[in-house]
């Protein structure tokens, strides 16, 4: 038994599903967003019982969705470049952090920092702005440029 019990998974889907779909759309585009969300929620279900606490579940779902979207980009790229199967997604939740780091590693440092604050720390743009010492508008711009870089160019391998 968990100290703080994990809520029934579908309560999370009902509370955050809408915004996760918006997020998936931003990362993967309209055509892929629903596939990304489905894949992300199934990944999340696989890992869910192993979570050690019931905190930051919304941020965790954002992270899983981000990783899923980025994996999709990477898989697409590999299909074009190298005919080998895409790396299997890590299932343990803590490994998502590693996967996320690996995926954003090729970006310039300021872009990485912005993405980490947005998707790992789950800060809003005001929070990101405070951490980066810039305006909220600039923070939003930095995050969206970084996401667009990943989306337009895929992940450099």
């Amino acid at each position: 038994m968990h100290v703080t019990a994990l809520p029934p998974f579908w309560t999370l889907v009902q509370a955050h599903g809408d915004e996760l779909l918006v997020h998936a759309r931003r990362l993967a585009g309209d055509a892929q967003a629903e596939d990304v969300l489905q894949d992300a929620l199934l990944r999340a279900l696989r890992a869910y019982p192993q979570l050690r606490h019931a905190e930051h579940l919304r941020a965790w779902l954002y992270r899983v969705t981000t990783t899923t979207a980025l994996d999709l980009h990477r898989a697409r790229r590999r299909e074009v470049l190298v005919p080998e199967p895409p790396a299997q997604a890590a299932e343990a939740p803590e490994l998502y952090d590693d996967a996320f780091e690996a995926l954003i590693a090729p970006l310039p440092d300021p872009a990485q920092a912005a993405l980490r604050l947005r998707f790992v720390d789950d800060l809003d743009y005001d929070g990101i702005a405070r951490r980066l010492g810039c305006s909220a508008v600039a923070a939003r711009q930095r995050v969206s440029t970084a996401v667009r870089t990943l989306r337009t160019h895929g992940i450099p391998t």
Partner: protein
Amino acid sequence: MTLPAALLEKIASAAVREGLADAVYATVPTPIGPLLVVTGKRGVVRLAFPEEPAAAVLERVAATLGPRVVASTAETAAVRDAIGAYFEGDDETLDVPVDLALVRSDFRREALLTLRTEVGPGHVVTYGELAARIGRPKAARAIGTACATNPVPLIVPCHRVLPGAGGVGSYGGGPERKRALLAHEGALLV
């Protein structure tokens, strides 16, 4: 933007297909109000009347069966059909697998299983008679508790258990529903 219901259904079905769901739930409209049904891998674990807060019901299921609880109409078709057939009067047996995982004691489990197997639609027993049937003739009060804490009312038919002194007695879904169910089964002249 709202998440399309069809997408949610698709995701839930995929989860069940891949063995990722500990429990699946749906709300079934019936003449006695919308009923929340929850099935586990081995059968129906919970049925709740609309007065019970769904969140609490699902949390309790999650604590027992596991937290991977998903909603799906398609994946609860068997039990929804059985409930439909019951209220239509086509088939009142509610013959679907039941899992009494949420029952807290062996005594209560035995009482509920005996009730389900031996007291069919249109029949009634008293608390004392049911106690006698499981070899505990003095345990009428404990039978009352077993019925009051029945996690799957309707399917385990505690509405067919009546006080020896007469009247319909109490019911988790309220005495009005108990009376309505008994009348529907032709077990009560109203």
